[in-house]
C-alpha cells in the first residue's frame, strides 16, 4: 500500500498532528496534586497519550478524514522509532554512574526475578477472587508487553483462552499502563519504607512508556537524586530487554501453569 497516492500527505498530517499534541502537552508541563498519602504526578507523556487517543480516528471520526489507515499504521511504526532517542538518552545516564550501578549490581540483577511478583499478586486475584479460567494463565504470568505476548501466541495461539487473557492485559496495559506507572511509584515512595534506588531500578519493566512514566514520577518527587534514578532505571530496563523473554519462557509461564493445575485440578489438560 506504500505506493498509494496520498500516503505521503497522510504521513505529513500525522507528524504535524503529533507535533501539535507535543507542543500543547509540553506547555502544560508536569502537574502535582498533593493527597494524604503523597503526591500524584501528572506528566506531559500522559496528556500526549490521552490526546492521541481522543484524536484517534477510531474514536474521533473527524480525524479519519485526514488520517488514513496507512497513517495509523505509520503511527504504530513511529512509536518504536520515536522511543529510540529517549532510550539512547537514557543509556547516556548510565555511563557516568557506572561505579554506582556496579555497586548496586546484585540488587539490580535479582530484582529482575521480582517481576514474578505479578504471579504472587495477580494470579490469586484472577483465579480465586474473579473465578477466571485459563485466561488467568496468559493474563497473570507477566506484564504482557510485546515479547511476552509473542510467547503466548507461540505457545497457545492468540485464539486460545490463554491468548485472550494475555491480549486483554496487553490492551489494558497499553491504555492505562502509563497512568498506573506515573501514579504508583511516587505514592510508594511516600510510604517512606523503600530505598529510592530500589524504586528506580524497578522501573525497567520492558516498556518504554512505562519506564518514562515511572522515572518521570520519581524524579518529580526526588529531584536531587535524578542522576542515579535515571541510571538505575535505564540499567534495569536493559536487563529486562535481555532477560524478560527467557524468565517468562523458562520460569514464569511454567510456574503459572503449575499453579493453575494445582488450583483447578479438575481442569487439568491432557496435552
Amino acid at each position, binding site marked *: 500500500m506504500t505506493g498509494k497516492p496520498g500516503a505521503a500527505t497522510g504521513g505529513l498530517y500525522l507528524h504535524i498532528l503529533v507535533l501539535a499534541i507535543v507542543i500543547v502537552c509540553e506547555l502544560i508541563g508536569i502537574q502535582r496534586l498533593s493527597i494524604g498519602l503523597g503526591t500524584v504526578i501528572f506528566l506531559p507523556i500522559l496528556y*500526549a497519550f490521552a490526546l492521541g*487517543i481522543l484524536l484517534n480516528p477510531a474514536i474521533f471520526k473527524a480525524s479519519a478524514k485526514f488520517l488514513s489507515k496507512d497513517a495509523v499504521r505509520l503511527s504504530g511504526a*513511529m512509536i518504536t522509532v520515536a522511543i529510540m532517542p529517549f532510550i539512547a538518552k537514557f543509556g547516556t545516564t548510565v555511563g557516568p554512574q557506572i561505579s554506582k550501578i556496579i555497586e548496586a549490581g546484585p540488587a539490580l540483577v535479582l530484582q529482575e526475578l*521480582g517481576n514474578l*511478583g505479578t504471579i504472587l499478586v495477580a494470579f490469586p486475584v484472577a483465579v480465586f477472587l474473579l473465578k477466571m479460567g485459563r485466561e488467568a494463565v496468559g493474563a497473570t504470568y507477566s506484564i504482557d508487553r510485546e515479547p511476552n505476548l509473542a510467547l503466548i501466541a507461540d505457545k497457545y495461539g492468540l485464539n486460545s483462552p490463554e491468548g485472550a487473557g494475555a491480549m486483554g492485559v496487553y490492551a489494558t496495559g497499553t491504555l492505562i499502563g502509563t497512568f498506573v506507572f506515573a501514579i504508583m511509584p511516587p505514592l510508594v515512595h511516600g510510604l517512606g519504607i523503600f530505598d529510592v534506588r*530500589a524504586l528506580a531500578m524497578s522501573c525497567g*519493566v520492558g516498556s518504554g512508556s512505562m519506564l518514562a512514566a515511572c522515572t518521570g514520577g520519581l524524579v518529580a518527587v526526588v529531584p536531587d537524586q535524578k542522576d542515579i534514578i535515571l541510571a538505575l532505571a535505564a540499567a534495569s530496563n536493559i536487563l529486562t530487554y535481555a532477560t524478560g523473554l527467557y524468565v517468562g519462557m523458562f520460569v514464569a509461564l511454567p510456574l503459572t501453569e503449575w499453579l493453575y493445575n494445582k488450583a483447578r485440578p479438575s481442569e487439568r489438560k491432557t496435552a
Partner: protein
Amino acid sequence: MANQTNTTANLADDLPLNAEDERKIDVVKHSGLLLIACAIGLIANWVGTGTSPLVALPGMLVLYVACIIGLGFARFVPFYLPSVAWVSLIAILITIPGVPGAAWVSEQVEHLNFLALATPALAYGGLALTASEFAIARRSGWKIVIVAICVMVGTYMGSVVVADLFLRLGQ
C-alpha cells in the same frame, strides 16, 4: 462496530507481534523516520525546558547516530538482540568515564530532558491504537482491568521488595 463480527484471531492481526521482524528492517527508511522523530523531540525539549534547539542539537545528533548504529546492529549482527538494547549499550559505552569523548557526550546530552523525548512516542502511541485494540479492551471487560492493575502493581512491587532487600544486605 464492524469489528464485532471479527474473531479474536482477526483482532490479533493488528497487534505488534513483530518482535523478531527487526531482522528485516530497512535501516535507510528508518533513518528518515528517526530524523522526523528527533526533530519533534528537539521541539518538545524546547517547549518543555526552554533550551534552544540549536543548543541541544549536538546532543541530539549524538543520540541520532547511536540509534542508527543500534538499528544496524539489530539488523546485521548474527544473534538477536532488540535494537533498543543495542542503542542502550552504545549510549552507555560512549559515556563511560575514560572513553574518548565521553565527557563531551555527557555534557551535550545534558541539554536534552529525558521526559520531553518520550512525549512524541506517546502521542504516536495514542494515535496508533487500532479499533481492534479498543475492541479487545472493551470485550475483555472489568475483570481484565482489575487483573491488569494487579499485574502492574505486582511486577513493580515484587521488584521493589527484592531490590530493597538486597540493597540493605549489601550495606
